[in-house]
């Protein structure tokens, strides 16, 4: 007979609670109408706050703005960074390592300070309070994921795979489209999702560059959280969480442990 390790069970439950607890609480709050101490569960359920939030234009506009901003910024960053990552992986040019590390160096600077100095420049260019100004700044948040993970992924593809295709008559472009890109896809998908989520939750850029005309979802969340109605913040939380979770589940096929580990140079 196999004994259930009691200590292990406790550890499992407490770890599960620690990981899922906050999410479950937020979800419960989002559907609670009345939830007072000392009840363990809400006493009155309903979608009341959902209808209230969805009906309010001050809520829906930032949500849509955020989704549009994030999609555009992530996709634009991918279009610029992925070919750059390929160059980092395959071409040998002077200062390659230095340039590659400069992306980490830039990431180590406190974002807020960075954005303040950018804001000064953008002010002159008329990009402050401008949708495209925010897109441009948010792309910065994607650079680390979009350069490092794909560079490692491209580097992990054996050159013989590309050479075999080239040798059989494919042009350089076709080799990239038919061989390199599909081979790197797991890591590229991982980098896209990670960048998407980090941009979606990014607060500083919208605060400094977008204000006052552009309000994003995280900004709204900050405003709501400082008010007393817990349910409103919870509803918004679930609203942000759902697309992110869906995206991560969708890309789960690509996001193998190997794919992500490769990204960090494993």
């Amino acid at each position: 007979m196999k004994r259930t390790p009691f200590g292990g069970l406790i550890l499992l439950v407490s770890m599960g609670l620690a990981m899922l607890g906050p999410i479950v609480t937020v979800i419960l709050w989002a559907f609670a109408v009345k939830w007072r101490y000392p009840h363990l569960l809400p006493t009155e359920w309903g979608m009341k706050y959902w209808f209230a939030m969805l009906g309010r234009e001050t809520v829906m506009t930032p949500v849509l703005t955020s989704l549009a901003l994030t999609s555009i910024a992530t996709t634009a960053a991918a279009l610029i960074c992925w070919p750059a990552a390929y160059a980092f992986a395959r071409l040998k040019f002077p200062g390659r390592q230095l340039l590659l590390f400069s992306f980490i160096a830039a990431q180590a600077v406190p974002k807020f300070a960075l954005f303040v100095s950018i804001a000064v420049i953008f002010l002159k260019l008329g990009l402050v309070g401008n949708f495209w100004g925010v897109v441009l700044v948010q792309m910065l948040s994607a650079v680390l994921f979009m350069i490092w993970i794909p560079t490692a992924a491209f580097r992990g593809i054996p050159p013989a795979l590309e050479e075999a295709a080239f040798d059989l008559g494919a042009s350089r472009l076709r080799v990239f489209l038919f061989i390199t890109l599909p081979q790197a896809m797991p890591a590229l998908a991982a980098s896209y999702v990670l960048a998407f989520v980090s941009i979606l939750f990014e607060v500083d850029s919208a605060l400094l560059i977008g204000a006052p005309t552009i309000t994003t979802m995280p900004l709204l969340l900050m405003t709501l959280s400082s008010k007393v109605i817990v349910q409103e913040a919870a509803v918004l939380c679930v609203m942000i969480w759902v697309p992110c979770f869906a995206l991560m589940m969708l890309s789960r096929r690509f996001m193998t442990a190997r794919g992500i580990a490769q990204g960090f140079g494993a």
Partner: protein
Amino acid sequence: MLQIDAITKTYQGTPAVKDASFTVARGELVCLLGPSGCGKSTLLRIISGLTDCDSGSVKIEGVDMTATQANRRPTAMVFQSHALWSHMTVAQNVGFGLRVRGLPKAEIAAKTAAVLDLVGLGAFAKRLPAELSGGQAQRVALARCLVVEPKVLLMDEPFSALDAHLRKGLREELKALQGRLDLTTIFVTHDQEEAMELADRIVVMQGGRVEQVGPPGALYQNPSTLGVAQFIGAMNTCTTTVRQGVAEWYGLDLRMAMPDGEVALLCRPEDIYPDTMGAAARVTRVIDLGPVTKVNLMTEAGDLLTWTCPRDQAPDLGRVLTLLPRRLHAFRDGLRVGLAQSPLPAQTAGAPA
């Protein structure tokens, strides 16, 4: 068919291929043989166009291809790592070369199926490379090249990652297929047994240079350099000095008709025979290899000697034998200077007093 002329390639100051020249006739299978790092793979890549050369030329059917990119050359290469594309099925892998040539789908499907049948993998078309064994994967890699009907098939140590048994089987399959399709093939290997078995001719490379080109038997019987002699097959090497037509071979003076000076005398283990007038050596080990017996001996001076003899002539351990060479290859400064057929000891009749 294929002409390689004075190819030289230097990697960051280190020469990889030096002035390499040879030709390959239509339907011929030529092996590039040499130890690792001898430049044979680099030379193959230069022929394929995947690597460029510093000087020299590659001509296929008289057309200079030196400046042509790999994707425009009528060559196809099988890689050591098989290099199959893991995201495509076997059929998609094989059909790739036709797809980039813009052939209609039906024709691609028909040709792919035919070539897969040819390599005995007709039933594997829908599989992914990950679901294949090493031998099957290498056959798909071969099929992928055959389907584009290359004028020259290039193979870069295609079987060296496989186990010995499988390697032998694939070798025979390849030879049969190559003969049937009349494929002009260059096969790179570091395994001399593989080269001897496959090749119509072997190009032996060492240190980036072409040492000797010839049919397997000729290389074995008449190596033109010390390097080739020591690389292909086993040799007993004895470094000695010729004085007035006499050279000492393992303590025994032999008559050698060659000018005075230092010389390396090489003798194959099977070219030794027992003779009462021979050099004395004690049997230190007897190894029964099945078809032949290998006998290790040590001379009085402590030199080691190997003799392969028929099984029924195997001596007892510890016995002292007297041996003479049947064919003695002489090299000076690394180059062949002569071959002594059954040289006689200096003390026999007719020897100078």
